[in-house]
């Protein structure tokens, strides 16, 4: 490739590639039209298609176009975009689709069999009843084989490991009922239970589908926020040409060019350049670290000031980031051993039910009822006790609660997260980015007069430097209008310079003061000079939220990688003990120590340095501004500047678990009423159908009370 001609030959159009970019800013039909019509005008781009749900754009383009060029093309249209790595096969989405297909089949079959059953119940007799039974069998057998597969598979997997779960009684119930009904149909019996078996599958699949849809919706929300950290870098070859190289093709010894605003794709050593690196993802410190020739730099760091040339020392699996990822993987293994509430209930429920069915079979045999009669009664007991309401009890409550939380900007990634959150006894918070906003906020703006503020806003609007952005947000929030400026120019590394009614004004790097621990910039208006210090502001409701958690019975603790001096203020403001200078492995050790003391830890953190602790916590939460890895690891992600969602989620989780337990009680209460009827042999298919629908409706109605849980 090194000898490639400078002007690439026009390639045939067949040879195109598809790239995926995350564009969080798409929100209306106008955005969509702008992207889909605007991108194909760029040379090399053939077509673009927006997916609104996932907030993604799929671009079909010439392979010569690199991800940064695509990103720039979108930026020209006014959209911030981040290239996504190859999405691969979405396993969860495929599973959801197959569940939905099973639900459709079960729904179709349940309706048609019910149609036939109603005519049998209204008095069809003789040959007509016989024909209706056969027709029902014809519909039910393939349906049970297809729609029942998810349950049979999971039950089989549990049985092979000598465990039992909710799917074991379901599978046994469905199979026995179908088998018995087939026998009845073949021998011309009066009752067939096909409708019951298929309806049961339909209700249970509805619960499973709801559960799956909720999870994939939350996951799509998180994925849209994810910023892929540097999928590659511009690599200089021997002749001074630069070439875009994917992160997995980077090798030690290569030289990469890192522009300001880009993330490093590999660990390395600075060859030339003088810049600031934002390594908050690693240390939790918000101020950029200055790097010069010879300094070591880590993959994932954000270059904030000037371009750097970096020699790669480690890439891929050898980088510091990859080490942390391995630590997280090991720490997360404990969580997969958690047994969900429904399965814990099934542990004693399933043996009880099976014992009851066996006992009623034996009882009727001893009473001399004959094999056929006894078996029919045993099947009726199984069908009545089949955990239809029980299977809906958990997902229905969790879906309603998660929906309510989602409207409040809290994304719950899976139902068991709510169960675990409700059990936590101690909350550990990271500082930077979690208790604080993790971005600079200007102080002392009130010392400026109205004119200076409007000039400052006009200056800040002209640049995309992080400090300018912070100024702009703060001033716009105060309702300041920008002043009219002339001759605005931005000098990289220096600042912004302009004129206001003939007087030179500027927003620039401080000349005099060397700020060691603080970010600052300097505003000059003629001869007036104002220093504008920036601090990482504490989230507005951090103190109240921690107090709310304490009054809910949780202990609180702050664990940070920051200097102990930097923690003093926040510890005092929130009234919480703080521990400083913790490395990722130290945080993990802290969580393990608390666990050993019998605490169930809720970890709230954002940085990559919190990753292992997030994975090890009994439950974990991360703000939407967190690093990718943390958002992927955390059970719950919350949006916005407020910390209140932590307390809201805890309250909602506790209420959800309460409702789930009520639902269990309701389901068991219904069984206590219906089982004696079944054992007495008084349950006909009609009674079973009515009882089953009724108990499901009661459970769903109770779950709907959670609609306002996230208040």
């Amino acid at each position: 490739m090194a000898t490639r001609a400078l002007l690439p030959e026009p390639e045939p159009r067949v040879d195109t590639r598809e790239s995926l970019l995350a564009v969080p800013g798409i929100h209306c039909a106008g955005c969509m039209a702008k992207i889909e019509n605007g991108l194909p005008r760029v040379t090399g781009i053939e077509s673009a298609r927006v997916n609104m749900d996932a907030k993604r754009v799929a671009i079909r383009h010439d392979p010569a176009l690199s991800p940064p060029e695509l990103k720039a093309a979108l930026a020209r249209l006014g959209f911030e975009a981040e290239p996504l790595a190859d999405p691969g096969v979405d396993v969860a989405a495929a599973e959801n689709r197959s569940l939905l297909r099973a639900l459709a089949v079960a729904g179709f079959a349940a309706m048609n069999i019910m149609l036939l059953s109603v005519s049998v119940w209204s008095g069809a007799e003789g040959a007509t009843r016989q024909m209706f039974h056969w027709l029902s069998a014809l519909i039910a057998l393939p349906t049970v084989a297809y729609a029942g597969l998810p349950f049979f598979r999971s039950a089989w997997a549990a049985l092979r490991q000598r465990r039992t779960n909710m799917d074991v009684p379901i599978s046994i119930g469905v199979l026995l009922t179908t088998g018995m009904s087939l026998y009845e149909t073949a021998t011309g019996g009066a009752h067939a239970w096909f409708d019951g078996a298929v309806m049961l599958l339909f209700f249970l699949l509805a619960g499973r589908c709801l559960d799956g849809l909720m999870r994939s919706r939350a996951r799509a929300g998180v994925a849209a926020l994810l910023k892929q950290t540097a999928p590659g870098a511009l690599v200089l070859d021997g002749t001074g040409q630069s070439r875009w190289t994917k992160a997995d093709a980077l090798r030690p010894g290569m030289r990469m060019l890192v522009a300001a605003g880009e993330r490093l794709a590999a660990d390395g050593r600075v060859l030339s350049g003088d810049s600031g690196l934002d390594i908050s993802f690693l240390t939790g410190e918000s101020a950029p670290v200055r790097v010069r020739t010879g300094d070591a730099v880590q993959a994932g760091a954000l270059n904030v000031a000037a371009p750097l040339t970096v020699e790669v020392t480690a890439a891929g699996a050898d980088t510091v980031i990859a080490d942390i990822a391995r630590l997280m993987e090991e720490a997360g293994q404990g969580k997969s051993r958690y047994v969900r509430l429904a399965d814990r209930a099934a542990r004693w429920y399933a043996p009880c039910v099976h014992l009851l069915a066996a006992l009623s079979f034996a009882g009727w045999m001893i009473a001399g009822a004959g094999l056929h009669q006894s078996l029919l009664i045993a099947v009726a007991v199984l069908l009545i006790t089949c955990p239809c309401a029980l299977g809906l009890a958990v997902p229905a409550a969790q879906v309603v609660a998660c929906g309510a939380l989602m409207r409040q900007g809290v994304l719950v990634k899976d139902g068991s997260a709510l169960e675990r959150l409700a059990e936590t006894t101690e909350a550990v918070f990271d500082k930077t980015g979690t208790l604080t906003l993790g971005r600079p906020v200007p102080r002392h703006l009130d010392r400026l007069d109205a004119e200076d503020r409007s000039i400052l806003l006009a200056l800040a609007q002209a640049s995309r430097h992080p400090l300018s952005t912070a100024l702009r947000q703060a001033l716009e929030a105060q309702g300041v209008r920008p002043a009219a400026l002339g001759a605005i120019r931005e000098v990289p590394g220096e600042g912004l310079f302009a004129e206001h009614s003939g007087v030179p004004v500027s927003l620039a790097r401080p000349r005099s003061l060397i700020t060691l621990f603080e970010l600052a910039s300097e505003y000059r208006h003629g001869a007036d000079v104002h220093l504008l210090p920036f601090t990482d502001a504490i989230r507005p409701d951090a103190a109240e939220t921690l107090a709310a958690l304490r009054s809910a019975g949780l202990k609180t603790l702050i664990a940070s990688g920051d200097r102990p001096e930097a923690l003093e203020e926040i510890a005092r403001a929130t009234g919480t003990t703080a521990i400083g200078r913790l490395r990722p492995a130290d945080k993990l050790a802290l969580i393990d120590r608390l666990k050993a003391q019998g605490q169930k830890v809720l970890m709230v953190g954002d940085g990559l340095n919190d990753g292992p602790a997030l994975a090890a916590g009994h439950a974990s939460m991360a703000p939407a501004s967190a690093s990718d890895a943390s958002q992927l690891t955390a059970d719950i992600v919350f949006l916005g500047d407020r910390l209140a969602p932590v307390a809201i989620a805890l309250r909602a989780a506790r209420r959800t678990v309460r409702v789930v337990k009520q639902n269990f009680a309701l389901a068991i209460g219904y069984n206590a009423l219906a089982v004696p009827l079944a054992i007495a042999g008084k349950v006909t298919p009609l009674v079973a159908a009515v009882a089953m629908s009724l108990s499901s409706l009661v459970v769903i109605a109770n779950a709907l009370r959670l609609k306002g849980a996230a208040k």
Partner: protein
Amino acid sequence: MTGLTLLIPLALGCGLMGLAAFFWAMRSGQFDDMQGAAMRMLDDGEEG
């Protein structure tokens, strides 16, 4: 009885048709981007 031999297959056929339509819609990705589809119809399509 003669009515039944006509009506039952008819009812089942209608149901099966609905089921097949649902499967087809899912396979062709019509549920992948529900919000997008709702907004796409507002696009005037200046250049198709």
